[in-house]
């Protein structure tokens, strides 16, 4: 696939479910996973006579996002109706913002794999309501769909970027950065598998060097970075092939199925995009006072960039470690507790990103559900750092903690895992092993100096065996080398 003559232009629209307790316009619960339609009240169902009442927390969360990306805040914003008919939207319109969004222009800086940075401009972000869910597969009679309206009315902000990204990598890094920001400031739970963040990707291509934008397509509703990347790569290929074969790209909405890896156009009826927006007469202009904005600014939690810088400064972490841990709000919180307990930040970072993250991943758990608490991991790292246990023992202790056997110290005690670091005791073991294996010692002495090093392993094995695996390997190495040298 040599498409060297082309360049890609990508813009994203990101739907972020806000972590409010209730819907944007009703006091029904937004908790995930409830039985179908048990959290859809009269307002969500668009019963006649109901009126929306705006959720203060949703407004505040939107403002917080605006502050986090250094955007203009819409001190006066307004709601519009976007009209379309679909069964998962009982009102026949979506209440959204068009002319006066709550968040205006802003900026998000992304850091790419090659170390360079790039600024992605945010066009605006607006408040709106989510739709319900249509279920097409189930035990229903032929020709019917089931509708669950629990999600209808869940508050969203839709973040609209400028077309500032030029390949899939940049789009993914940008998406991850947004995820990091909204979870760090606590306005979204970030659970992609539950649809808490969904991405629409606008893609167009143009001959390299051209300043005019090509016709774009929009691939809707991608809910994982992997699918997003696949969808972008496929769509870029499709558009370039199409144009090189003499065709033209049609402006259309597309869907990408991550399971079948198949992309296809969504709607054919062109009038479907005629939404006939008009101001929502049920909602008055929303005013956010300067006092409220300043209060939210004062209380804005630490942003990922600031946290990463602090981790380098405060804990002496490498840029890489600080980026991995610092961009993930729950992992960062976990790390800080563990590092406090262990008094060894670097080693704590290694265990957090290594053993712990791998194990959580393999069992599809997020760090908030980790069977090993931050205090427990810190306790384990402290024992590695003070040489009480070896790295190998540490893995065994970690297994024990994962299985719920208690703290590192409890497990070390119960399993007799204490590492022997006492020089006198270790010397005694080394001498005993050497005495009991005179043939090996003779062999060692008679071996060429250059090849002697290879013989050390055999002694190490016997010494570790004699110490029931508890000898501190670094120290044994030193003592062994010293004792053998004395015999030469």
């Amino acid at each position, binding site marked *: 696939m040599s498409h060297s003559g082309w360049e890609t232009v990508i813009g994203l629209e990101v739907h972020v479910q806000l972590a409010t307790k*209730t819907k944007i316009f009703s006091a*029904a619960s937004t908790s995930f996973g409830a039985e179908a339609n048990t959290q859809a009240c009269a307002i969500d169902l668009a019963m006649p006579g109901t009126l929306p009442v705006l959720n203060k927390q949703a407004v505040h969360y939107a403002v917080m996002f605006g502050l986090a990306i250094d955007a203009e805040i819409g001190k006066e914003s307004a709601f519009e109706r976007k009209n379309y008919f679909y069964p998962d939207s009982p009102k026949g319109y979506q209440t959204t913002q068009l002319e006066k969004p709550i968040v205006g222009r802003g900026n998000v800086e992304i850091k790419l794999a090659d170390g360079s940075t790039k600024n992605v401009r945010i066009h605006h972000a607006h408040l709106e309501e989510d739709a319900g869910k249509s279920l097409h597969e189930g035990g*229903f009679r032929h020709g019917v*769909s089931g509708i669950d309206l629990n999600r209808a009315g869940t508050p969203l902000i839709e973040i609209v970027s400028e077309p500032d990204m030029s390949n899939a990598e940049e789009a993914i890094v940008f998406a991850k950065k947004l995820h990091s920001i909204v979870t760090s400031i606590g306005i979204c739970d970030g659970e992609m598998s539950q649809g808490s963040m969904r991405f629409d990707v606008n893609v167009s291509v143009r001959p390299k060097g051209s300043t005019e934008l090509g016709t774009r397509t929009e691939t809707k509703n991608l809910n994982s970075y992997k699918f997003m990347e696949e969808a972008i790569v496929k769509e870029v290929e499709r558009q370039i092939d199409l144009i090189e074969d003499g065709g033209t790209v049609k402006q259309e909405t597309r869907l990408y199925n991550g399971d079948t890896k198949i992309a296809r156009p969504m709607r054919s009826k062109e009038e479907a995009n*005629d939404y006939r927006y008009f101001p929502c007469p049920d909602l008055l202009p929303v005013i956010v006072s300067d006092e409220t904005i300043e209060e939210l600014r004062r209380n804005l939690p630490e942003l990922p960039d600031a946290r990463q810088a602090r981790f380098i400064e405060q804990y002496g972490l490498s840029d890489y470690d600080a980026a991995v841990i610092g961009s993930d709000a729950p992992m960062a919180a976990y790390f800080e507790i563990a590092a406090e307990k262990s008094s060894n930040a670097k080693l704590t970072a290694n265990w957090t990103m290594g053993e712990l993250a791998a194990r959580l991943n393999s069992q599809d758990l997020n760090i908030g559900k980790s069977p090993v608490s931050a205090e427990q991991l810190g306790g384990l790292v402290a024992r590695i750092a003070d040489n009480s246990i070896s790295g190998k023992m540490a893995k065994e202790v970690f297994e024990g903690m994962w299985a719920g056997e208690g703290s590192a110290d409890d497990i070390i005690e119960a399993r007799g895992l204490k590492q022997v670091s006492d020089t006198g005791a270790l010397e005694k073991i080394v001498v005993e092993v050497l005495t009991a294996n005179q043939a090996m010692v003779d062999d060692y002495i008679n071996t060429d100096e250059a090849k002697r090093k290879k013989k050390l392993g055999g002694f190490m094995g016997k010494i570790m065996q004699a110490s029931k695996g508890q000898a501190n390997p670094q120290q044994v190495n030193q003592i062994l080398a010293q004792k053998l040298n004395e015999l030469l």
Partner: protein
Amino acid sequence: MSIERQEIEKLATLSRIAIGEDTITEVSQRLSSVLELVDQLQAVNTDGVEAMSHPMKATQRLREDEVSEINQREAFQAIAPDTEEGLFLVPKVIE
């Protein structure tokens, strides 16, 4: 400004309203007179007048984020045309 027959048909489709052959002329005339009114309004010089999103001199009141709605699914579904396992059933729609 008058409204073409084609536009009436498109609006009817978008609004999911059936407009019969016998009424299409009347609807067209009525909508045209609404548009004429809009034309009149648009002829007014509004330089320096700030656009307003609502005619009332009031601002939106905000609600605290506390759950107060209870599950009334049985009552709502009792008046629905068709339900199954707690879901509202509708003619199949697939995008």
